């Protein structure tokens, strides 16, 4: 064997060993799905390592298989992750099945809970909602907003044509009716130009998440917030009206707009063909980087019940299925991450949106990026889908019946009645409804 190959072999054998060697201060593994903020968190992790000697590894799992992988891990006696950045809807399952460490008593000793935005606390961190029992700390706070082609909206010829057609000025829509008008105006398939794009995917939660922005602002509801009763709250004329309206909006999008996942919605806007995008704020820094001042950002339009934005984002939870020492390291990281000075670094990372109220209320944050102002205004109106342990079953039936109603496969009221009935059945079986 030549000297070179001996050295190469020795190096190859030594490398994994060197990587596997325990860090001086220990090491932490965080799981998140694959997207830009996870890179930002990894960068922050390096800062944390410099300060504490505790190495942080953010492992990014493709979104499509993230949930399946996470809950398969929880099925084992020990998880590979110490900290999980899980979807807001998982918190019920995580808390009630003993998968997430209860942070209630500890969290208030390391941070002022008043500095965490109440909506983020309610939907991302507490279970049951608003109970004051904390199972997560906010990691990435997000909401749905709109991005629009500012250059099209400001084009003199387009403005004149819109004025002529609708008798009013072409402006960023403030109501859903205005939104529809603008989308109708820009819907020109022969020119490969389309009105709007929003999540409608059937594979996981796209259709439900896209629809609920309209649902709430039209005065509809998924349930009675206190009793969890669904019948009489979901199958109402207001919800039916919202479904009909949503169906009309879908027709004002690019081809196949009845089944677009978040990435496809983004693609429809990024390829320069669509006037308005409805999606999470987390995607907006990428749009800003690509289009510069040709795009603008705004809050969602209002319906007769006001303006409501669907919540996005994830909380940071500690796995109960790791040794106590690892849980302590995880707590150290979360306490560090929640500090204002670290949150100020976090907001400089791509799509690093914070729940820290001191930062959110500052003029400096609003001015930092064109989407920050609309984000702050949206967070005040955030609401979320179910986050009970049977969230997945509730989501699956919602996707099914909503899909059938939107596709015209079943009359809207019939679909809503059946959906309400099946949801109550699921909730009864889970012991959440009498």
């Amino acid at each position, binding site marked *: 064997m030549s000297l070179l190959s001996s050295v190469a072999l020795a190096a190859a054998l030594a490398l994994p060993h060197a990587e596997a060697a325990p860090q001086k201060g220990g090491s932490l593994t965080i799981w998140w799905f694959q997207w830009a903020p996870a890179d930002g968190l990894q960068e922050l992790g390096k800062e944390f390592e410099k300060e504490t000697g505790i190495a942080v590894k953010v492992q990014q799992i493709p979104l*499509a298989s993230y*949930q*399946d992988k996470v*809950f*398969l891990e*929880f*099925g084992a006696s020990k998880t590979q992750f110490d900290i999980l950045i899980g979807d807001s809807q998982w918190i019920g*399952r995580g808390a009630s*099945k*003993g*998968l997430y460490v209860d942070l209630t008593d500890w969290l208030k000793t390391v941070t002022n809970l008043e500095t965490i935005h109440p909506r983020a606390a309610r939907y991302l961190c507490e279970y049951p909602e608003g109970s004051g029992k904390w199972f997560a700390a906010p990691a990435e706070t997000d909401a749905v907003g709109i991005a629009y082609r500012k250059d099209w909206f400001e084009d003199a010829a387009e403005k004149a044509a819109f004025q002529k057609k609708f008798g009013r000025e072409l402006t960023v829509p403030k109501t859903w009716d205005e939104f529809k008008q603008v989308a109708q105006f820009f819907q020109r398939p022969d020119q490969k130009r389309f009105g709007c794009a929003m999540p409608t*995917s*059937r*594979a*996981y939660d796209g259709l439900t998440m896209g629809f609920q922005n309209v649902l709430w602002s039209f005065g509809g509801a998924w349930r009675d917030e206190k009793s969890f009763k669904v019948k009489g709250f979901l199958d109402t004329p207001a919800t039916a009206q919202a479904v009909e309206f949503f169906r009309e909006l879908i027709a004002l999008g*690019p*081809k*196949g*707009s*009845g*089944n*677009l996942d978040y990435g496809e919605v983004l693609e*429809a806007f990024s*390829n320069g063909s669509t006037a308005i995008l409805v999606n999470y704020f987390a995607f907006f820094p990428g749009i800003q980087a690509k289009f510069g001042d040709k795009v603008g950002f705004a809050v969602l339009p209002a319906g007769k019940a006001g303006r409501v934005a669907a919540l996005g984002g994830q909380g940071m939870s500690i796995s109960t299925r790791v040794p106590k020492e690892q849980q302590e390291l995880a707590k150290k990281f979360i306490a560090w991450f929640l500090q204002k000075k670290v949150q100020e670094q976090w907001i400089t990372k791509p799509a690093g949106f914070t729940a820290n109220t001191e930062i959110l209320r500052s003029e400096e944050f609003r001015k930092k990026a064109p989407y920050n102002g609309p984000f702050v205004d949206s967070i005040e109106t955030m609401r979320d889908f179910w986050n009970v342990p*049977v969230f*997945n*079953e509730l989501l*699956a039936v919602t*996707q*099914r019946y909503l*899909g*059938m109603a939107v*596709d015209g*496969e079943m009359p809207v009221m019939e679909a809503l009645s059946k959906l309400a009935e099946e949801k109550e059945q699921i909730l009864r079986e889970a012991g959440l409804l009498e």
Partner: protein
Amino acid sequence: MERSRGGLGRFAFVGPTLVLLIAFNLFPLLYNVVLSFTNAELVGDGWKWIGGRNYERVFTDARFGAAVRRTAWFVFCAVGLELGIGFATALALQAFTRVRAVLVTALLIPMMLSPAVMGLFWNLILNGNHGITNQTLDALSLPQPQWLTDREWKLFSVILIDVWMWTPFLMLISMAGLAAIPKTLYEAAEVDRASRWTVFRRVTLPLVAPYLGLAVLLRFTDALKQFDLVMATQGPNDTSTQTLSTLLYQVTFRDGKVGLGSAYACVILVLVIALATVFTRYLETIQRRTA
């Protein structure tokens, strides 16, 4: 003593395989049956017996009936098309004696690729906006169906991908069957001045039928389990494409209902075994008739 050494010797040969079969086939199967009578969940503390409630739920679940009908339609269309096109291609390839090897190699490529990768590729090919299929149809001023998003086309698209992928398999088996037919039979038919159609109907088809039957049986049992293409193109919860396997996945891994999922698995297993047995009997009849 001699007998016992012989017994031990025989066990030494079959033992390891037997242990593996028990560990990886029999035990999981029996454990699955046990779980199907419990309320076990993917995560959580323990489980308890709930009798036949899971089976009751399977048979009253509208999704199950719909998934059975959808899977049956998928198997019928996909395997039918694969058989027709595969056999026709094999017959056509008989005319190409010089370049046959090159053509066969090229035609076999789809079969050698991973279904998951194929699903992702076809997601791009059939994309309604920027997919090459609709771009081509647009250039030809032809209607552009929304292959992956329109509920009328979604299942058809999955069938299309499956046909593209597995037709070469049927072609390969058909070629093997055609090659096994003795040349003397064709020579005798020529002497008798039999028409090409008569030769095909009386010689080719009966002699190649057992091969086709076997290939269809293999594809049939495989297509009944259709999972990867549906997952890669539509996910497990789409009402237009949910097959038995993806429904099973949705219940067990997304909803986390392991007990209920096990009941689904048992019912699906019985269904597949029953259908495969009927098919095997039919195949044996064909073979006896040919012999």
